[in-house]
């Protein structure tokens, strides 16, 4: 046998074949099942002053009822076993480092530069206690201060707090500031309504509600734009504010956003710009030009910090000078020589977090901006939008998919597609297509609820995939859509190449069967057996 041309099986008619992907499958037990009595994963340093402080004597000071009788029922494993178990679990996870992560619309799953992770893990950050004397933390305070200056320029706002622990926490902080503002004008309780739109992130509604406001949700007009007439009908002397995303989760930019702000201002309300979707407008348009009083960014989205399976991320909320006095404490001040944490702000809404939020995330965001500069940020926006419009064109070549609303308009950084036509034709739903895509090593997410766009799928490529990545992604989606026609059962029973197969969700909504811990699971099984 001679050497055969392996490459010819990888291409057909010059087109790349789909990957013969299979997700890692270790069939890993639950960690408690790996336990072996007496094993130790790590040893703890003993105290060499123990003789002087006999343990019996120490514990004798603790009343018996406060002393734990049995050690906690944790698993017992050697160190290599723990490592191997978690390495296997990590392999059973895709992550943006592995897949072409453009299917998680609204989340801006861009590449997170490794150098920034290295910097964030630096001992000069990792080992800092937050209550050390200010003179010993000038470096990290400088990073926080410098990054605030950057965000001020990117948004046009006058002051920022980097404290909110994530995007929703920043939305909540803004709602709290709106509440404090009206209270300071003697209108606490009178202005108790926040207006948002259904294509703004659900946290705009949920955080406003949590802050004590009644929520009014506007639905889009026929073209998918936020409805200005609906806003005019909604405002009143009870309007506390508007909390709105732009571009909305459809990727459509609202060109009359400044009119929305005017209407709310005239009614006496404040306006908060949810800039979680800012990736496509960096250097193009800002909160300031549209007249907003507050805004927020997600540093784990637009500013590249990794998403960590759902945090830690960081939210940054920015306000105009008039509202700066309400920001959470502390804020970082610079007197030209040294950086200080300023707590002396009598109108503050208070503390958001135990210390200052997630400084390593701020550090990553700072490093990311510094690697790009003003022109680079503009390039981020241009390519993110170019990639999205390229993807849109390619996606719309697939029969059965559409991009509802704003016909003939460009989309900014993402598109909420609809598989309504395909679902009607084949009976295969969008969610099922997304799960089948997992068999090819990619995934997509449908949409927040409610599904205003029927059979939705929200794609946001960001600036970091290559053209080949985009083409490959579309090829997979196209293939799966075709399968829905030719072999719908194959799609409906997916995944087939994943770590696990179709999950039975029924127990997860049934109080007698749901189990959020291993001990609850074991107990419920026993109860059932009895």
């Amino acid at each position, binding site marked *: 046998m001679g050497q055969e041309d392996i490459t010819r099986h990888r291409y057909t008619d010059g087109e790349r074949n789909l990957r013969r992907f299979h997700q890692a499958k270790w069939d890993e037990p*639950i960690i*408690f099942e790996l336990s072996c009595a007496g094993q130790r*994963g*790590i040893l*703890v340093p003993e105290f060499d*002053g123990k003789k*002087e402080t006999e343990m019996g004597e*120490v514990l004798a000071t*603790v009343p018996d*009822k*406060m002393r734990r009788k049995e*050690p906690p029922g944790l698993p017992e494993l050697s*160190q290599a076993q*723990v490592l191997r178990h978690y390495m296997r679990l990590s*392999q059973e*996870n*895709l*992550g943006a480092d592995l897949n072409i*992560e453009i299917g998680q619309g609204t989340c801006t799953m*861009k*590449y997170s530069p490794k150098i920034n992770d290295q910097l964030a893990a630096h001992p000069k950050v990792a080992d800092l*206690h937050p*209550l050390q*004397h200010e003179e010993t933390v000038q*470096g990290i305070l400088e*990073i926080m201060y410098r990054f605030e200056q950057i965000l001020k320029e*990117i948004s046009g706002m006058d002051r920022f707090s980097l404290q909110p622990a*994530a995007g929703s*926490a920043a939305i909540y902080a803004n709602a*709290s500031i709106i*509440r404090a503002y009206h209270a300071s004008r003697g209108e606490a309780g009178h202005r108790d309504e926040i207006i948002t739109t259904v294509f703004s992130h659900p946290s705009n509604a*949920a955080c406003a509600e*949590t802050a*004590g406001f009644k929520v009014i949700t506007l639905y889009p007009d026929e073209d998918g734009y936020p409805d200005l007439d609906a806003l005019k009908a909604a405002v009143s002397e009870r309007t506390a504010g508007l909390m709105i995303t732009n571009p909305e989760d459809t990727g*459509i930019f609202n060109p009359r956003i400044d009119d929305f702000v005017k209407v709310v201002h005239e009614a006496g309300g404040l306006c908060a710009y949810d800039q979680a979707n800012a990736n496509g407008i960096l250097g193009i*348009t800002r909160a300031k*030009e549209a007249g907003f009083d507050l805004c927020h960014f997600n540093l784990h989205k637009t500013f590249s910090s990794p*998403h960590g*399976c*759902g945090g830690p991320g960081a939210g940054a909320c920015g306000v105009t000078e008039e509202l700066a006095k309400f920001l959470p404490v502390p804020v970082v001040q610079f007197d030209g020589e040294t950086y200080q944490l300023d707590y002396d702000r009598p109108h503050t809404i208070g503390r958001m*977090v135990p*210390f200052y939020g997630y400084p390593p995330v701020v*550090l990553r965001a700072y490093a990311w*901006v510094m*690697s790009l*500069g*003003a022109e*680079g940020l*503009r*390039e981020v926006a*241009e390519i993110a*939008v*170019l990639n999205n419009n390229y993807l849109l064109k390619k996606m719309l070549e697939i029969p059965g998919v559409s991009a509802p609303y704003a016909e003939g308009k*460009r989309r900014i950084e993402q598109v909420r597609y609809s598989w309504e036509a395909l679902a009607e034709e084949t009976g295969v739903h969008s969610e099922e297509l997304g799960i089948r895509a997992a068999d090819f090593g990619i995934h997509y997410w449908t949409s927040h609820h409610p599904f205003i766009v029927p059979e939705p799928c929200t794609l946001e490529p960001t*600036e970091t995939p290559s*053209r080949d990545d985009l083409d490959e992604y579309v090829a997979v989606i196209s293939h799966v859509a075709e399968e829905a026609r030719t072999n719908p059962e194959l799609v409906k029973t997916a*995944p087939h190449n994943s770590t696990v*197969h179709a999950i039975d969700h029924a127990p997860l909504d049934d109080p007698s069967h749901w189990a*959020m811990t*291993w001990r609850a699971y074991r107990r419920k099984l026993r109860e059932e057996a009895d």
Partner: protein
Amino acid sequence: MSDKAVTYPYIPNSAPSVKREMLEEVGAQSAEDLFEDVPERLRVKDRMDLPQPLLSEYELKRHTEGILAKNEGGRAYVSFLGAGCYQHHVPAVCDEINRRGEFLTAYAGEPYDDHGRFQALFEYTSMMGELLNMDVVNVPTYDGFQAMATSLRMACRLTGRREVLIAQTINADLLSRIRDYCKPHITIKLVGYDPHTGQLDLAALRSKISDRTAAVCFENPSYLGFLEVQGSEISQIAHDHGAICVVGANPMSLGVLTPPADYGADIVCGDIQPLGMHMQFGGGQAGYIATRDDAATVMEYPSRLFGIAPTSVPGEYGFGDVAYERTSFAVREEGKEWVGTAAALWGITAGVYLALMGPQGMVEIGEGLMARSRYAMVEMNKIPGVKVPVFRAPHFREFVADFSGTGKTVAEINEALRTRKIFGGKDLTEEHPELGRSALFCVSEVHTREDIDRLTTALKEIVD
């Protein structure tokens, strides 16, 4: 900077030829065409005024490390700071796992994409459940502050009441957070303490509690370091009035101390930073909330809850969201508070930590912390004018030292310690004026006897 077009390493399609071809593909003359729907009046007029970029990775690293070099601390100092952020040893395996790109860069995939994330977090909540002796633990929220604020709102929703009683010894910053978070609906009343022992004043509690009380809340070990030994009496008083007992508990203490559930706590909450997270200037915080497996209680969690479920293949573990319909993801403002990105990676890390430590490790570290704090208290109390501990009660790893008798302020003492490369305790003078010139000291397993002796020797010199 030269004028030549930059191809950014993080932006592959910024390569001029590719960009040109793609623009052509979408029918645009230039990138400007892509923004035709953004009206001129909303445009940024000039290029943004930002610092010059550091285009090469090396320049970026050099610049950033240059700034970070201005930080001091770490191993160059002996630190006795705690107060919510703790200097414990972080096992190497914790860092190894949470730096894995598969975990670090994942987000919101389905269980089919991210089975590992779901299993790792299910195991985290399961191990926390063992530590806490409770059946339900959430996927981490932001931090211990958020966990307690949410626990109180959960208690109010569960009871239909709007007043909470909180021990006055609580961290003032935490109280600030709770006040803001509970503002729209909930009245907060503080319950005093015995000045000699720090213990909650049960008579005051009895006089303040009523059928309007949704929750009675305290921390154990308390913020000021002592143990609250009346847990069962407090929870009994709460329950007698139909109120919920909320306890903030540091998970590091639960190898040796009775879990709050065993003395009647209904909701237990706190921060998992001690379980394998570097201090990171406060960036290692993450919150937990735990309860019993009661359907009404579970439905009041705003957080995600991951549950175990069968799949179509016998013997295969699957996972998914429990009772998703209660969340703001599902029903916007109709959901419980809100849910979003929080601190999942620290939950995975805390799971790794607990798996490494095992039952014996958690017992040994708890005993070791108590031995060290005991030793430090005894030695510091020998110094003329220094009263340690302020509270006659058992302590875990933190304690209050009163320097009033030395004639020096805490700030002066800490300044003098700092010149000796020691970080003294958190200054409580403004926060707790009733405690005089006091500071909150913290020990951990990283402290040797020599480290503690170095502190006491320095203090002797300073107050002399």
